[in-house]
């Protein structure tokens, strides 16, 4: 039917042009990259956040192998800021180490004594002075508040997020310039029809709207495909990494909010394409009567 073509794409029938379909492929590839970059960074940040939360308010006391922990336990339990003190017995330590060292090699190994300490919610404890106190009881006692390596990991996650944001912005700019380029070509190709629309009284925005609509459809088709591809790769990477015993830590899973952020990528790509096409047409029409 005649009305259908009109309603789909307007009088310029831009949706029929095969010349600009590559836009969908380019935007799709860019959305794929953006999804991967952002997905990995979000997963890393999520893990860092979860670990930080789970170590919040916990300490680990390390005693030299063979040391007597009774005095240390008493001193710890006397601290008002401490909620719970739980020594890790030799069997549990061995179980923790077995995957790394092999179960058979542990028997004669001097394994340091470990004590898990849980602080009261919101309580403050000076870790250094606690350490000094314990070292007086058992020379070589160390109090680890996980700050050092957790801090490094948090910084890494933050850096990954920054890099991913830069990638997303760069990818968005690349998509915008592709759309602008394709739109200029489309304007030239449809010059006669555009002139006619002007002569029968169309405003520039009416014409720009048709180009924006066409660019949006192409960009959305491409970006949705690319983002789905990226999400599939992320899910696959996660399942491979978590089933593999060789990794030091499992590749983290994405949370619900992370998936929402990733879903925003094709929507953002669509919006970028619409704005780029609209602005390109408006700027270029300003130069002709």
């Amino acid at each position: 039917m005649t009305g259908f073509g009109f309603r789909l794409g307007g009088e310029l029938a831009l949706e029929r042009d095969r010349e600009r379909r590559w836009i969908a492929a380019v935007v799709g590839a860019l959305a794929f990259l953006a999804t991967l970059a952002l997905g990995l960074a979000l997963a890393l940040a999520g893990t860092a956040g979860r670990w930080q939360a789970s170590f919040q308010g916990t300490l680990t006391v390390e005693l030299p192998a063979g040391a007597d922990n009774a005095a240390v336990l008493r001193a710890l339990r006397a601290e008002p800021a401490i909620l719970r003190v739980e020594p890790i017995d030799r069997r549990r330590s061995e179980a923790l180490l077995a995957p790394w060292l092999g179960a058979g090699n542990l028997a004669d190994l001097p394994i340091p004594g470990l004590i898990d300490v849980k602080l009261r919610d919101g309580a403050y404890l000076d870790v250094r002075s606690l350490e000094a106190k314990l070292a007086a009881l058992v020379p070589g006692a160390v109090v680890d508040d996980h700050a050092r390596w957790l801090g490094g990991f948090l910084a890494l996650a933050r850096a990954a997020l920054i890099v991913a944001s830069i990638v997303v912005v760069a990818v968005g700019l690349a998509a915008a310039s592709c759309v602008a380029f394709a739109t200029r070509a489309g304007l030239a190709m449809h010059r006669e029809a555009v002139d006619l629309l002007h002569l029968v009284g169309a405003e520039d925005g009416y014409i720009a709207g048709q180009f924006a609509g066409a660019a949006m459809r192409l960009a959305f088709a491409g970006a949705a495909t690319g983002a789905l591809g990226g999400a599939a790769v992320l899910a696959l990477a996660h399942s491979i990494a978590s089933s593999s015993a060789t990794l030091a830590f499992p590749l983290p899973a994405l949370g619900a909010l992370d998936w929402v952020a990733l879903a925003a990528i094709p929507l953002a790509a669509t919006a970028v394409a619409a704005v780029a096409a609209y602005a390109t047409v408006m700027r270029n029409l300003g130069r002709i009567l």
Partner: protein
Amino acid sequence: MVIFQQVGLRYGLGPEVLRDVSFELAPGSFHFLTGASGAGKSSLLSLLYLARVPSRGMVHLFGRDVSRVVRAELPGLRRRIGTVFQDFRLLDHLSVVDNVALPLRVQGTDERQVRDHAAELLAWVGLGDHLGALPPTLSGGQKQRVAIARAIIGRPQLLIADEPTGNVDDRIAIRLMRLFEELNRLGTTIVIATHNLQLVRESRHPELRLDGGTLSRHAKAA
């Protein structure tokens, strides 16, 4: 309605195809524009329907100096003008009824009204059976009538027609002329460029004659 003062027009760096053209069209008037092929009729009309601005001189339209009109005002002025182009300029991928509807659609007129109105006009020019046809499947005369329907659908105050009877037989030419007369009676100012001197002679309307880019005669006072 229209005032031309010492208007000159050149394409790019070429020679002036219009020179010192001065005339005035009163509201509600009806003029023929004649002249040999290449005399500059279509060029002059293109200044009237605001496709170009003059290289020199002054063009006033609806009381506005065209050279002072800002871009955002052009659509509003153009909607008061209906044009039948010499080469029709129909959009080949749109049906006949969608081509005719174009001036109303770009204004955002209600869709039901647009289709009814377009279909009605097409019936009137004898193309009621061709609403869904695509322009490439039409004869020259049929295309011309589609172009005329498109030019008048927006009820323009100024109707410009470039050789509107060039491709139709006498019977349809007479019918189209009656249509133009009728629109003129309703107040539309009309300018028709034509080679058809017989048409001009048989009519009581004045003639603007172009000769090598200059307006040489302003015959038959209105």
